[in-house]
């Protein structure tokens, strides 16, 4: 049975960064991922990474912008950690080989981004996530002796020992169907978010909330799950992302009257207000009949005033996306976009070391809720979050590992998981709905009722639907009975993960009776600082999530009216 000091589940930015950090601490490390590491969804992060590296900038300014962006729901101690450590982290990335673009002086160039009081976003064209992910993978190859890689292994369960500590995971080798136990002194969840709960979403098909559901089932609390970010610029056609970097480089938003409407909603920052503000503004324009396109459900993003050479150099990927997925040459004509699901601020509750309340279980990146994003994440803060807290979790877990013996995982856990999979394989043909149908209904329900604007009725409808779908998912139809690359079985398990995440999101949204950050309740349209500067925590129970609250950590910034 493989045994490791630190077992990291997920090999995106958070996972790979954690692996490198833990290896440098001398731990015996393994990274496990259901896809090859460079396929991880971090690869799609486009715009850049924030850090106060300009000599005239200050990390406190970055921290303040982040606190304000979070609508005062972010924990300020964690935000201070992230922002103060950001410059060193970006320099570290530069030193290991990330090809950050330079200014004329040969220094890191910084671009403008939403909700930021100055240019502080370092970038590699509009493939920043890809560049960092691939460079981290280079480092994993370099440290191949210290870091084992389990590529294309799918985790079905986490294990706790008698003392309640997390002591390993059970996973299925996607290529062979073999189920195996992986013992670990510490497990770091770095499995990303749950975007596939929504349809459409900018997130890849693999982003199915695995880590969130695994932790939740193990008994870890989820926090702020109602906070779901709608990105202001996703393609009307299919929900693909158009980077905020476009607006950072000077693109503007126009309604059907050709009006640059953000001037009304955010007179100072306009298109570069924070994402919740811009998405709400767009949605309001659409709801009030000023949308563009045949169904009047879009907004024009116009980037044509940015010089063509600059677009091709710095926003090359969205030129391709426009051409390939919308048939539009963005250098010469506007492109139709609208708000679309992009990120979840909530996740598994952790402290500033990435530790969850379950001993031996860590979480970092989108799967986690530290919380540095609170009610709304600023663009280019997510890469930073993954790296800072991935590293911190890796270091902390490695140190914890050094002081303890290797636990063991009983073989019965493997048998349980084999039985679970056998039961899926044994489902009678044609008995239930197809997985794809259930998933589609879930995605549409969430996008209709748990989106930019929410209310009690819609949320209650969504909760009923999610509960029904969960029952239906138990008997969902399976075509593939094989063991090699059985994506049908994985799809069935992923569906159950997504439904757990969806339920938590809806319950959280129903619970929070105010409007803050990404949560806008039309029946409670005001921010209510008296009662609701607190986190909502959800813990598993037989009758669905148990709700409790915890305080938001405030260090130096008191809530203010939020204008951009």
């Amino acid at each position: 049975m493989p045994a490791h000091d630190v077992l990291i589940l997920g090999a995106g930015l958070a996972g790979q960064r954690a692996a490198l950090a833990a290896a440098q601490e001398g731990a015996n490390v393994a990274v496990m991922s259901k896809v090859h590491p460079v396929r991880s969804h971090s690869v799609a992060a486009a715009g850049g990474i924030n850090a106060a590296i300009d000599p005239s900038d200050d990390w406190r300014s970055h921290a303040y912008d982040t606190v304000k962006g979070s609508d005062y729901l972010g924990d300020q101690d964690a935000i201070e950690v992230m922002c103060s450590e950001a410059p060193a982290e970006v320099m570290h990335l530069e030193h290991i080989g990330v090809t950050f673009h330079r200014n004329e002086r040969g220094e890191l160039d910084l671009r403008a981004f939403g909700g930021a009081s100055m240019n502080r976003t370092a970038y590699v064209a509009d493939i920043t996530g890809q560049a960092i992910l691939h460079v981290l993978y280079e480092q994993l190859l370099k440290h191949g002796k210290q870091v084992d890689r389990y590529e294309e292994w799918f985790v079905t369960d986490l294990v706790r020992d008698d003392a309640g500590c997390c002591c390993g995971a059970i996973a299925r080798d996607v290529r062979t169907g073999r189920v195996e136990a992986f013992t670990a002194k510490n497990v770091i969840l770095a499995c990303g978010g749950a975007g596939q709960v929504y349809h459409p979403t900018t997130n890849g098909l693999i982003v199915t909330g695995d880590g969130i559901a695994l932790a939740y089932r193990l008994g870890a609390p989820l926090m702020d799950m109602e906070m779901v970010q709608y990105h202001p610029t996703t393609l009307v056609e299919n929900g693909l992302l158009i980077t905020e970097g476009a607006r950072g480089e000077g693109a503007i938003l126009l309604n059907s009257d050709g009006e640059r409407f953000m001037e009304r909603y955010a007179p100072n920052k306009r298109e570069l207000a924070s994402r919740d503000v811009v998405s709400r503004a767009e949605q309001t324009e659409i709801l009030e009949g000023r949308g563009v396109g045949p169904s009047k459900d879009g907004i024009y993003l116009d980037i044509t005033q940015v010089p063509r050479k600059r677009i091709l150099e710095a926003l090359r990927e969205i030129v391709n996306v426009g051409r390939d997925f919308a048939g539009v040459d963005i250098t010469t004509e506007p492109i139709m976009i609208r708000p679309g699901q992009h990120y979840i601020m909530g996740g598994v509750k952790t402290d500033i070391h990435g530790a969850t309340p379950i001993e031996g279980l860590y979480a970092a990146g989108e799967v986690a809720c530290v919380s540095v994003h609170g009610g709304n994440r600023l663009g280019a803060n997510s890469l930073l979050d993954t790296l800072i807290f991935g590293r911190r979790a890796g270091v902390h877990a490695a140190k914890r590992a050094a002081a303890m013996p290797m636990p063991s995982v009983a073989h019965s856990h493997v048998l349980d998981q084999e039985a679970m999979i056998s039961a899926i394989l044994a489902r009678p043909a044609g008995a239930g709905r197809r997985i794809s149908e259930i998933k589609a209904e879930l995605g549409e329900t969430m996008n209709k009722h748990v989106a930019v604007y929410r209310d009690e009725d819609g949320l209650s409808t969504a909760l009923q639907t999610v509960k029904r779908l969960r029952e239906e998912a138990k008997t969902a139809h399976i075509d593939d009975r094989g063991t090699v690359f059985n994506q049908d079985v994985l799809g069935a398990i992923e569906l159950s993960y997504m439904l757990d995440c969806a339920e938590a999101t809806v319950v959280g949204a129903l619970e929070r009776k105010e409007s803050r950050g990404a949560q806008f309740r039309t029946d409670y349209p005001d921010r209510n600082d008296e009662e609701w500067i607190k986190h909502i925590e959800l813990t598993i129970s037989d009758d669905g999530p148990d709700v409790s609250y915890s305080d938001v950590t405030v260090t130096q910034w008191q809530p203010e009216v939020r204008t951009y």
Partner: protein
Amino acid sequence: MAEFQLRLRRFDPESGEAAHWEQHTVDLEEHHSVLEGILQTKARVDGSIGIRCSCRAAICGSCGVRINGEPGLACNTHLDHAREAAIAAGTDGVIVVEPMGNMPVIKDLIVDMDAVHWKKIQRVTPWLINREPVPEREYIVERESMVDVTQTMACIQCGACVSDCLSMEVDPGFIGPAALAKAYRFVGDPRDDQHFERLDDLADDPQGIYDCTHCFKCVQACPKEVNPMGQIMRLRRLAGSDHEITDPNNGRRHEEAFTSLIRGYGLLHEAELLPRSYGGDSWFGKFHPAAGKELLASLPVVIKGLLRGKVNPKTAAFGHKLPKPALDSVRAIFDKVEGKSHSKRAERYELNLYVTGYDEDEHHASEPSTTTPEQGSDK
């Protein structure tokens, strides 16, 4: 909505049966992707169809396949374009999707990239070896240098170039287009300390940079305009011209002989090429013992060529020169590409789309110019 026919290559390693074709009808918009077609079939008809995919936006690199025999990504190939290509290929518009080549198939459209692709990536020491001293802040480097390596950084490791690399088909040990493009990412990076060592290593390896046959397949295959062959040529130029690395594979001498013959004659002078490659880049090359040995060894091929009429004895022996105006045009290309100074890299006309390409395409559309490979790959 429109109907499209998809013919998928199916293979179930557990069935004990050989791979076979299976045809499905999908109902989608014309600009939807082949991937959406496959996923619709998977969702509605048969969940056991195996394909790796995630982002749907040509950035994760998972869904490399062959469509109508050509490698590419299923997610950024439109159904209507694929149907047009299918009609052109004479399949009555049935879009044929099969796994990539040069790699073992695991199941259906899923190939084993570890055995071929990732192993070769590891071969090129794929990490930065820092130039010392490592600065406290960022390395101060030329603005253009980072834009330049971004082209190879943009490789998504999809394997499309590996799939159809002709050299790799003949010599499975060839390091290959993707891994060599990755090598340029370090050789072109001013922060790397081992440019010479990397180039020397890749020139020295018989399956390294000189094992590429210039067929352009990888340039066409690449969905991200990484231009792998162009990167290999840049590695050769850096190795041969800048670092003056003479390799045991005779790659550099062959290339020099080749280019000096073209510069001299405007056309390739086959009979001179081999002796000059081995004996030295002048008319006297053929008298060098190494050249004699090679000439003897290739005699059977030469005779076969003569007998089958593939070689004209007169032009083979004496060469054929272009008329003066045409020859001047050829030499003008040399001057433009190599620059006036042959050694200074900064003055060289680099064929990098990120730095030059498109804008030139636009501004000089009416002028006949040296067409960069990338300009032709816009599907």
